[in-house]
Structures are given as C-alpha cells and as structure tokens.
C-alpha cells in the first residue's frame, strides 16, 4: 500500500517542548526516511526528555505500509513502557496516515471537523506498473490481499485492546452509532462552518449498517469477523470516510468541537475494568517481516 509519491520526504518538526508535553508535527508522505526520523524523535522525546505522552499532529496523504509498520513498532515499544502517543490531524489524513491515526492512543485520536480522513485498501506504486508481468501481477495481487487482511486484523485487534474487550468495543460502537442517529441534525449543524455546510444532509446508510453489525453479531467471535469484513469492504471503496462514520467505527475518538466521548459519558472509563475471558478466533496471521521485505523487493522499481 503506498501513495502515488512515496519518495517525497516528510517534514517532521518538534513544534513544542514544554514542561509537560511535546508536540511533533508531521507533514508530507510517510516514507522510510521519515519513519526513521520520526522513530528517532520519539525515542529522544520519550527516552531523553522522558515525556509520558507526546502529541503527534499528522498531515499526510499517506505513504508506505512498511514505513508505517516501522513507526508503529517504535510506538508500541514505548507503549509497553507506559508511554503514549496522542495522534491528531487537522487537514488531511489518508492511507497510511489514517491508519497511524487509528492505531494511535485510544481516547486521544482527534480530528478537526473538516479533516479529510481516507482509509483504503492496498495500492501499488504507479512505478511498479511499468515492470509488471502477468505472473508477478498475480503474486502482487495475492500479497495485497494478504496485506489488507493483515492490516485490518491488526487494526481491529488494536481497537479491541483500546476498548478493553470485544464486548466493550461493540457496545461503544453501538452507542456512538445510536448517538449519531439520534442527534444527526444537530451534529450536522455543528459540522457546518464558514466554508462548509452539512446541515441539510440526509442520514447516511452506514449508521444502520453499524447498528446492524453490532446487534446481529452478539457473539464476540462473530463480531470480530463481521467487523473485519465490514472494514475490509469499507476500505475497498477507497473513498474519503465521513468523520461520523470513523467515529462510530471507533477509528477516531473526537471530532473537534463536534463530538467526543467525554460529554457523552460513554464506556471509556469502565472499559479497562471489564475484562472478558475469551478465546481469540482464527484471524489472519500477520505477514512476517521477511514476506513484507520480499513484497517490497518485488515492488521496487528497477
């Protein structure tokens, strides 16, 4: 999965270094160089400056999945030591950047009301087309399907971990969807601004789809599989995702000045208390590093 211009370097700036918080602003593509730089920056902010939480503001059209993977592993290392990264975006957050947002610290993923958030399935770097053969294209297609499945499985697992359990995630999604359903007009009004009006929008279909997804899959195993399938379908549309939809699906936690869990008093405070014992269903195994490397190798332009 990559954006059309993966080699373009991102600008990564530590814009704030105060007593209790540090902010990193990322603008540009997510590439390998940027990922390495970002990792070094957060290592320094967590390691030397010893911040407990870092805010990352990301404005990116996306980038390479391998770079995202590298960044997420670095973030995960610090998460295990009790440090957090709150991700937010103000203007554009697509592809790998959107995934970085969704993988961010649970409860701290924030967007502005006009942020463009786009989740999509794996895409190829346009330069690979020129050297693709029939044989390699079938291999690449298989790998892309695997990558999609892997990304979605990991994303859903991260959301479950953030919510505390599958049931909690399901309940949260249901409540959010119901809240949006009940307050649709009001929320649309809140989304309006000087440059954009959404007060006359009709209720979208995804609200009922999410409610149905949760209510028909009461078994946690079924919910997991259903949610993975739902996201897979949604990502394949390759279109900008409505922020309310992202919110209802648990991919973001707050739309600035419009909606967040805090006033709604959703289950966030109790999700960590409720721990369910469950057997994990068969989920697609994560693609190994070796396979990813070979995949990248195969996609590398001559």
């Amino acid at each position, binding site marked *: 999965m990559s954006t059309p211009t993966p080699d373009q370097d991102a600008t990564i700036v*530590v814009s704030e*270094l*105060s*007593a*209790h918080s540090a902010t990193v602003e990322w603008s540009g593509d997510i590439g390998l160089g940027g990922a390495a730089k970002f990792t*070094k920056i957060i290592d*320094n902010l967590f390691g*030397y*400056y*010893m911040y407990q939480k870092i805010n990352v503001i990301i404005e990116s059209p996306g980038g390479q999945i391998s770079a995202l993977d590298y960044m997420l592993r670095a973030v995960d290392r610090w998460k295990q030591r009790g440090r957090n990264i709150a991700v937010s975006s103000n203007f554009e957050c697509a592809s790998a950047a959107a995934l970085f947002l969704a993988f961010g610290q649970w409860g701290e993923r924030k967007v502005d009301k006009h942020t463009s958030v786009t989740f999509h399935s794996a895409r190829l770097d346009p330069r690979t087309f020129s050297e693709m053969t029939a044989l390699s294209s079938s291999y690449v297609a298989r790998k892309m399907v695997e990558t999609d499945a892997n990304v979605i499985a990991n994303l859903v697992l991260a959301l479950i971990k953030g919510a505390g359990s599958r049931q909690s995630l399901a309940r949260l999604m249901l409540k959010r969807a119901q809240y949006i359903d009940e307050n649709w007009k009001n929320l649309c009004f809140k989304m309006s601004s000087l440059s954009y009006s959404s007060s006359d929008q009709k209720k979208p279909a995804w609200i009922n789809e999410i409610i149905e997804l949760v209510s028909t899959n009461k078994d946690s195993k079924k919910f997991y599989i259903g949610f993975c399938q739902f996201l897979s379908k949604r990502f394949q549309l390759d279109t900008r995702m409505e922020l309310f939809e992202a919110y209802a699906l648990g991919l973001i936690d707050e739309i600035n000045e419009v909606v967040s869990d805090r006033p709604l008093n959703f289950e966030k405070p109790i999700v960590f208390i409720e721990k369910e014992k469950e057997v994990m269903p068969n989920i697609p195994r994560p693609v190994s590093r070796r396979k990813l490397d070979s995949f990248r190798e195969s996609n590398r332009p001559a």
Partner: protein
Amino acid sequence: MGLSENEYGNDDDESTTAEAIMAEQIVLVKKLNIHQVMIIKKLHSDFVGRNQKTEKIVYENGEITASGNNPLAQRYTLELNKNGSGLIRSGEVTLETRGFSSMRESNEDREMHNALDLFMNLCIKIPGFKKMSTVEPVKRLQLKPVLKAAVAPISYTGNEPSFDFRGSSLLETHDLKPSTLCNALALGATGSGKTVSCVLPLLQALLRYEIDGRKTSILVIDPKAELLDHVKSPLKAAGQIDRLIVLGKCKPIDLFNDNDGLDMPSRFEKIKALCIPIPADGDGARWQQFADDLLKSLLRDDQLFVDYTNLPLLENVAAFIFDKKSLLTQGPWVALNYILKFGMNGTAQLRLIADIYDMLMLFAGLYKLGDRPINRYISSRDNDQFFYNARGALTIVGLVGSKEVNALMNMSVRMGSKPGLTTDIAEAVENGKVIVFQPRANATFDMVGRALKSLFYRSVMERRDMTRPTAYVCDEAQRFISSDTDSGDQTFLDRCRAFRCNVVLATQSIAALQTVISPSGRNSAIIDGILVNCTTKIIFRTPDISTVEMLKAFIPPNPISGMHILTARPPASLKTGEYFYSVQEKFGRTQYQLPKK
C-alpha cells in the same frame, strides 16, 4: 569517710594559732551577711547530714556554735542586720524573703562578699579544717570501661534480596537493593510530595526488609509527624509492634555511658558540636572560646566534686540558690541553665553564686583544687565579661539544659555516673528495633535529633552483628544535619555503605543545607561531601538554582542536538509526586505510583 573526734582534737598550739588568725580577721568576719550565714548553715548541715556526721553548727542570736571538737565550735559574734535577726530565728527562709531577687551592687554587698572570702581563707588556715570538712575524697567508682572490640564491617555484596515495594516500583525498577540505593537524598520544595512519594515507600520497604531473618534497625526522625502511623500499622500487622520505640514515650536515653571511651572534655566537645553544628569564626569564635572556657571550668569542678563527694556540685548550687530540691535531680545542664541566667542579672547575683559555689568546694575540701570560675569575674570586677561569656555559654546550655531535653535524653557529661533505667540505643540497634523521634519545631529538638543521630551512628558502627541491615530515615534533614568529624553526616555517609546502613535524607533544597552548614560559603565542602556520598538523588519540584545545577551534573546533555532536558522540563515544573532521579549510572524522571490496595 567518717571522722573520729580525735581527728578534730588538734594540739593546743594549732588551736591557738587559729585563734590568733581569726582574731585578726574578726572585724571583717563580723560583717558576714545573714544570707551568707544561712548558706554556711545549710551547706554544712547538708554535708554533715549526708555524711551522717553528728556535729552540727548552731546559729542562735547571731552566734555560730558548733558541737564537738570542731574548731568552728569557737564562738563568733556576728553582726546581723535588722531583717537578719528575725530570719535566723524563723529558721526557714525562701529566696524571695532573702531578697536575692532585688539585690543590687552596693558597697555593703561588696564588703559582705569580701567578708565571706576572708572567712573562707580563714577556715583554710584553721589547722585540721580539711579534716573537719566532713567530706573525704571518695574514690570514684573506677568502673573499668568495657571497650568493645572493633568488629569489622561487612558491606553489602549485591546478592542480598531486593526491597519489597508491594507491587510498586521506585526509581522505575522493581529490583532496588540496599547496595544499589546506598544513601538517598530527596530534595524538593514543600508540598512537592517527597515524603509520600519517596520517604514513605522507602521507609516501608526498609521496615519489611530483612536478611537471613535479621530485621532492619531503623532510626526515623519524623518532624512532620507523618510517618509514625505508617510505621505503626505495618509493624502491628506483622506482629512486630515490639520493634517500635517512640522517643518521649520510652525512658530517656543516655547520650554517654562509661563504656564509650570518652572523657569529660571529649563529651563536652561532642555536646558543643551538637548544639553548634557549625563552629563560629572570627570574633564569634573568640567569644565562643571564652564561653567554652567558663563551661569547661564549671564542668571540671563539678566532675572533681562528684569524684570526691559522690554529690553533684552544679545541681547543689542551683538548688541552693533557688531553694528548689527538684533541681537536684534534673541534671547538671538544667542547673547550669539556672545558674548562668541568674548570674547574668547583676553583680550581686553573681557574687551569690560565687559564694555558694566556693563554699561548697570549701566544704568538700576542694577549695584549692577547683578553678573558682565564677569568682574570677568577681575578683576582676568584670561582671560584664561574665554576662557575655554566659550568653555565649547559654547557646549550648540553653539547649542542653532545657527540661524538654532532659525528659528525652540524659546529656550529662559526668564520668562515673551510675547507669539508670534508660533506653539503650545500642541494644535497640542490635535487636532490629525501629526508633521513631517526632521532634517539635525548635532548636532544642533539633539538637536532640542530632544527638540521637550521633548515638545511632555510633551504635551502627560499634554493633556486634554486622550482618544486620540498618537504616536512618530523616525528613526535613536540614534541621538535623551536623558536620563534626565524629558524627557529622558527611563522615558517616562516607562509611555507612561498609556498615550496611542505608541513609534516606529528605530536605527542601541544597540551598536549605547551605543555610545551615555553610551560610558564608566557607563550609561548602561539607555539602559537597554529603552530595557525593548520597549516590541516589531524587529531585522533586524545586526552583532552587543549586539543585538544578547539581542535576545538570548527573543528567547529560541531549544525545542528539537539542536543548537540555532541564531547560525544557525544569524541576520547578514537576507535578506533585513527580521526580527526577539518579541511581548509580541511571537517571530518569517519573512519578511514584502508589501501590494498589
């Protein structure tokens, strides 16, 4: 000790000589004041009574008579003033009726003093007077000091068990050992959380800590009265409440004992170091020297008196002046406190002290052996000098001689005093006890804290069982810091690792230590010594520049270019309970998470 009549029965020649000498002085002797007569009476009867002598001096109608063959049995006619005659008959007088409090320097007073002086000189010249003095030198109880054989310290090896923080971690590690912690210094402004987030968890871990079944002996100085409950409840829960000793609720502690190998002057120097943690310099040192000389002379005489009579001199002087028997049991420092303050009131008062003092020495037969430290000022007519010297002496005596101190600790420097029923800190250290002291906020209690610490340090270093872990935990440590070479913190901190002792000091800032130890900056090496030997440093919220500078010394600059962490996140911005730390070669910034209940 008793004297036979034969001993008084001197030959006639001697008596005649005595008579002749006395006749020469009779005019002056006549001017003896009623007060002085009373003094003589009381002193003599006291000593005679104490030594079970049958001889008595009787005063009637202005005449002194003594029974037996005592040379004093000769009659002297004394000229008494109007008030005096009545008082003699009444027999019992109080200080106020004697009019001491309103005594002023006058020619009459001076004459009376001279008269007494002459009287004493006269007595000395009386053949056999020394024998008459009813008191023979008493051989001091020559208890051979049981000097403990030096026991080699056994330092921690690093293989000892870790502290148990009950699921929490301090300094971001679950594997903190006494050898890793070594000595810890917690610095932080008031309300920064150093007691709750540092002192308390460490104290509770130390309470639980044991090696091979040997529990940790701990001294806890808790000026904020926050720690005692947290010591009590875990000990109670573990069925070890008998380990707890709370100073003030137990018997007083002897600061010195005959086995400590210290003579009286050394003990005095220790007391001085406890009261004046930092010696004065310049003119102050000179004045302090005079004050010390005065105190040393008084204490030397007192020791001499005790050695010869088994009775305390200073307590008797004070009890006599103030007519308070209770002063006899309150120790020499309380007596000195009374005596010096009384003497500072004026020349007349000073003379009274000198007279009583000299008379006691006279009756003990020590007149020529003593220093006559008070009389010096009278002879040189320099009672101002006494005022300043006594004022200097009161910086020590005022602290050591307070009643509060005596309730907690016996700080007498006398040699050969019989051990009373006291709390033995050395035994407490040997048996893994937890000694808690909750001092009030005044200089007296600060001094007691320093004394207790000094005693604890000594007990740690002289204990028999060197494998037992020990610890000293002190909140508000700037109040109890000391710098003497024997028990000063910088000296002990240097050695305590070898003696299996963990020291935890909590204080406001390095500036707070400087204010106490090195206000002029001249003793900054002592602070450096403390900082160097506290290998674990825990810094809570503080705007203190010295502390920040010290932090910069152990937190390196940013490995990739960028501002120093202390510039970006200064210690002044730390939240309550949040701290920077440095332990061994590791540093960090974290917040202590209270254990889950």
